[in-house]
């Protein structure tokens, strides 16, 4: 197992990944490559396997078969150090999952200080800098329950970024937000993309996926049924089911 990243290789690679829960097969034979500094959007109906795919990439779920590589290193090897893998992957959840007993600043500095051994002063400086950039400078010392949903989600993004991850996974991060708050969170994601972060995001925001994604994957029944650039998948879908899915999205006024 080599730790040296392959130059020019993908940041995240999945090969024949299979995941079952009891009798139901949630992911079957999933292959995926995510190049460094690119954004991959996973689209598809609820239950198509988007979230499970992200949870597998972060080792929150143990896959049944196949393999996953992060930066050239196989992370699904049973000998791999799971904590070391997770240290390099940032995750933002649909329900924010901020720790309610800590201030925003404490939420953000927890992992840099406890896991990465950064000094308190340095961690706080970096956190405040990020908060400032995402327009949350004034909220550093507030507790999460006193923030709006959009602010909480932005704080959660800062928390994920504070450890300088190689890869950021975003799991339907706007699904719990009011429409007028969705924009502020998506703006943040645009900024993060500008900085060159590699991201995989599961989303129902088709307009956003179309705009920001370098690669779009349409999942259906646990299979990546169609993939390509945003233009290909949204503009000229090849599969009948992709067309049907997009038609429903358009009918719902989401594209």
């Amino acid at each position, binding site marked *: 197992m080599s730790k040296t990243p392959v130059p020019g290789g993908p940041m995240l690679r999945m090969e024949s990944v299979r995941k079952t829960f009891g009798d139901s097969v949630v992911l079957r034979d999933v292959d995926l490559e995510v190049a460094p500094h690119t954004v991959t959007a996973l689209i598809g109906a609820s239950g198509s396997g988007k979230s499970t795919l992200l949870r597998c990439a972060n080792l929150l779920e143990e896959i049944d078969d196949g393999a996953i590589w992060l930066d050239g290193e196989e992370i699904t090897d049973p*000998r791999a150090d799971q904590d070391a893998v997770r240290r390099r992957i940032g995750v933002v959840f649909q329900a924010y999952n901020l720790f309610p007993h800590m201030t925003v600043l404490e939420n953000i500095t927890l992992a840099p200080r406890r896991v990465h051994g950064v000094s308190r002063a340095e961690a706080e400086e970096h956190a405040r800098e990020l908060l400032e950039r995402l327009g949350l400078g004034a909220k550093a010392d507030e507790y999460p329950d006193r923030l709006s949903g959009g602010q909480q989600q932005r704080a959660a993004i800062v928390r994920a970024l504070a450890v300088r991850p190689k890869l950021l996974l975003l799991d339907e991060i706007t699904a719990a937000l009011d429409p007028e708050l969705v924009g502020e969170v998506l703006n943040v994601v645009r900024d993060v993309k500008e900085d060159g972060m590699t991201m995989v995001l599961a989303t129902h925001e088709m307009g956003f996926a179309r705009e920001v994604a370098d690669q779009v994957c349409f999942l259906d029944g646990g299979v990546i049924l169609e993939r390509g650039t945003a233009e290909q998948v949204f503009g000229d879908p090849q599969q009948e089911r992709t067309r049907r899915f997009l038609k429903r999205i358009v009918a719902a006024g989401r594209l």
Partner: protein
Amino acid sequence: MKEESGEDTAEGDMPGEGGAYVPSLRRIERERHRRARARRSAAVAALSTLVTAVVLYLVVVDAPGWPRTKETFFDASFAREAFPKVLEGLWLNLRLFVVCGVVVLVLGTLIAVARTLRGPMYWPVRALATAYTDFFRGLPLIICLSIVVFGVPALQLQGVTNDPVLLGGTGLVLTYSAYVAEVVRAGIESVHPSQRAAARSLGLTTRQTLRHVVLPQAVRRQVPPLLNDMVSLQKDTSLVSIGGAVEAMRSADIIVGRSLNYTAYIVAALLFVALTIPMTRFTDWVTARTDRRRSQGGTA
């Protein structure tokens, strides 16, 4: 995980694997490695258990006073003699525990609820409940029992019992209700305010909110600390012996006094421990079952 639209779930034109799933060599290798690792951990656990047991055995048996201790605390013939008598006494402990436990849980909950009542009208109720818990939590149980068991008969009130078991039980209830009230109150206050808001928004009254939304959630979190108090109560039923009630501890005492051999205490100790273990396991089982029903899978 269910597909949203039924029409889309046909398997026919699925790319990738069309037929039955065959595990890859990679998976087989991985599982072999996991099994090997599990075997290794089991071997390590067995070895460390054995070493610990041997060390403990040697430390005890090598102690200079061991032969004498063995004679005065672990004598099989005295154990056989003490067992039926202590067991008979334990039956009283058990009955006392069940009755006191039920009364304590009810009374404790009522006091806790009284302390959480809002509004100026309830001020005296709140104040009384607070004073009660402050007083009886601070009062050492042995003093409380002495006062009740010896003090009440001394008053020579008409129609009030002098039975040391009833009086001792009353003393236990007074103290333990205060403990339990605090556990229940902490549980009630740990339920997130948004739950109250949701219930009140549905039109439930304060009382209905407490009964149907707050208490059920609070009780679940209270189970471990409440069990702790119940186990403690079970043991403290032995303190009722100060008034002369012949329960397990007193039975053992009588035998020890007569024979000058302490084995009866060990018998009583083991019986008390044996009594609490099933209760602990039962509570663990109930908690685990509820957890399973609430959450589906997910590791880490």
